[in-house]
């Protein structure tokens, strides 16, 4: 009986996770107080190739409100070897957390020289 419920739960959450991420109804982007501590990471990123790779990546990672901004290099239209500066909220997520989050949506993410 218990196994059946566990399977049902896994299936349910799995199905939910496969769909595109959407913000909860009525929610929206909100300003973060200026005093909130921020961190910055400089990274080199290989994105999943597509004609809109940069935008697709942004739309996926920004659903996490602990990320504040992904500032891209000038190589617009290129999906590999992109240099980005990621601004995040230090009190809510650490460096390893940011890297893990970004890696879910890119082929490769590694730290670069600032």
């Amino acid at each position, binding site marked *: 009986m218990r196994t059946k419920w566990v399977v049902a739960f896994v299936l349910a959450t799995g199905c939910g996770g496969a769909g595109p991420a959407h*913000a909860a109804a009525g929610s929206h982007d909100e300003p973060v107080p200026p005093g909130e501590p921020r961190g910055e990471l400089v990274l080199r990123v290989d994105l999943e*190739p597509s004609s809109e*790779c940069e935008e697709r990546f942004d*739309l996926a990672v920004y659903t996490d409100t602990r990320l504040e901004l992904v500032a891209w290099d000038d190589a617009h239209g*290129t*999906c590999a070897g992109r240099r980005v500066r990621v601004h995040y909220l230090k009190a809510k997520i650490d460096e390893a957390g940011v890297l893990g989050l970004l890696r879910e949506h890119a*082929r490769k993410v590694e730290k670069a020289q600032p």
Partner: protein
Amino acid sequence: MRRLLGPALVALGLLPAVTTALTTLAQDRPPTAQERILAAIPEDASVLINVPYHDMPSTPDILELGKRSTKALERCLADNVDENVRMLCAVVLQALGDRRALGTLQAALDDWDAGVRHRVVLALSSVPDPSSVDPLIKLFRRTDEDGRVRFAVLEALATISDPRVVRFLRDELRSKREEKDTEEYDFRASVFDALWHHRHLTAPETLVGDTRAALESDNQSLQLAATLAAADLRSPRLVPSLVDLMEHPNVEVRNKAVYALGRIGDRTATKALLEHLPNVRESRMLNNIAFALERLDKKAFHATIAQIIGHKQAVIRLNAAFVLGDVRHPEGLPLLETALGDASDFVRTSAIVAVAKIGQNDAAERKRALDDLSKFVGDGNINVKLEAILGVHRLTEGGRNDLVHDELFELDPTWYGEAVQRAGLELAKAGDARVREWVTTCVIHRGCSLEAIDAWVKTKDPEVSGRLLLAWARGDARLTDTVAALDPPGTLPTAKSALLDATSYPDMFRLTGSAVLGGLGDPSVLPLVQEHARAKHASERIHALVAASRLGDDDAQKRLLAELDGLPAEWLPGYVRAVGRIAEPEVRAKLLPALMQKQQDADPHVALAAAAVHLRWDPDAAVFRFLDALASPSSYERTLAERYLVRADERRVTWLLRRMLAREGREGVRDRLRALLDRRR
């Protein structure tokens, strides 16, 4: 003879004084009727009542007075017997967007002249108010009303977000067509457009139902409007109606229907798209279907594109190569490698461009693409050679400057103009000194955009700076901010002379002279710009006020803020551009509290102009006022916010828009953010 010499010398000596006296007399001529009337407008509300058309001051001259002219224009609209004068007054009232004229405009809906009513209705669209709903609907329903007035009514109703408007529009959309309703008087497309502006007031299911009805209607303009709406709505319920439109006789409708299917991304459309492919006869349709399939079913896409790239017609093979490059799937590389051997130079060129794009995916694909492209760098066809060399250059991250220079830039521009131009721009991007003179000349002669010389602007190259200053002094207004930032030797005296010697308005130096002087930060020119800050022409005055504010004049800052309330609504984007130039943190800090307050002004024109200045200064903080505006109960405010966001084309604003879209849970805001981002691609 000698007797005459004395008086002659005296006369000669007096000549300059006499000339000056005559000039002064000419300047002191009595003012013309138009000048007298113009001067009286702010003081005398009745001055325009008896003015004949030929004595009316020009529209721009009245607009220079800003909202101080509203009262006189209202009386003009109510009491002048000449319909052409009343029309002109309504036109100016529309540009002013002053809500104080609302009652007069509503009363003028009963004007006996259709041309005046037309202008009055349009003027009401710049001051949207619920009290206009009933009079506008009444006007639309009059069977004897002129067609263009009724179209204008729908335009005005699109700006007033009110449940009565939505009910009226939905009734009109579904109303039965009568025989007398010819295509010319079929308002349904405009009705749908107005309804679309108020989509935030309609339940999603109702909106989808209305869109489906529009897609299935017998009116091409309505169907076209509905395909665009369907692309934004992205409801799978619209798929069957869109599939039916793939056979539509109108090419625009067919293409937009396929585009919408791709955007909706519902797999049920796959079969219909695949079945339609063999019948396609235009490249745009082919590309749209391919892109739609790529979103819907990647496996089906690859099976199909593999067939198309071997099509018997070169134009189809060419487009297939283009699509493969754009979607960047590595699976496309073998297909493109086959196309590199195509008999058609056009197909080979398209395939080379596509291989270069896929080569950017990762290291392995880059190496393979480089091997492929290297075979074509010496090709006999210039287009193939050009794309191969530029492709190799980009794949090596700008590592083949010499190849680009020797093989392309050195070609004879008489015969190979495009190749030379593209090679030059590529080298300029890398700051290659060999193209410095060429690209500076190209920018100065307007053959290249200003960004082409970024490399030398960043390093403040003295030779480039000097040439840009000369070009600015010859009248190239594009260079204003760049010259102020570079500040090459001689900029201050040149800009000062440009302002001193500027001829009468609208000499551009009355604006750009102040703009450069304000950016240089030298307070010695403050008296000169202060003098221009009293000019009667608003643009000249505002540019001078901006310059004086930047140079530390606190009074100018106060006057600059006050201008925001008095300017015609249509001129506020120009105000935003001018004030957006202020770069000094201490000046911004002084102006910001008042601008933040103005962002809450009851007049949306003023509120969003203040927010747009803030957006130029600090996008991260200012963008939230625009998010509020995109969620406003008023469709007018939503549309106004969209316009300012379209104008703010900085990449940082794009990133912020993406963040807002990712976190947006209100459907009516999501679709506007999505549309804004689509426009920025």
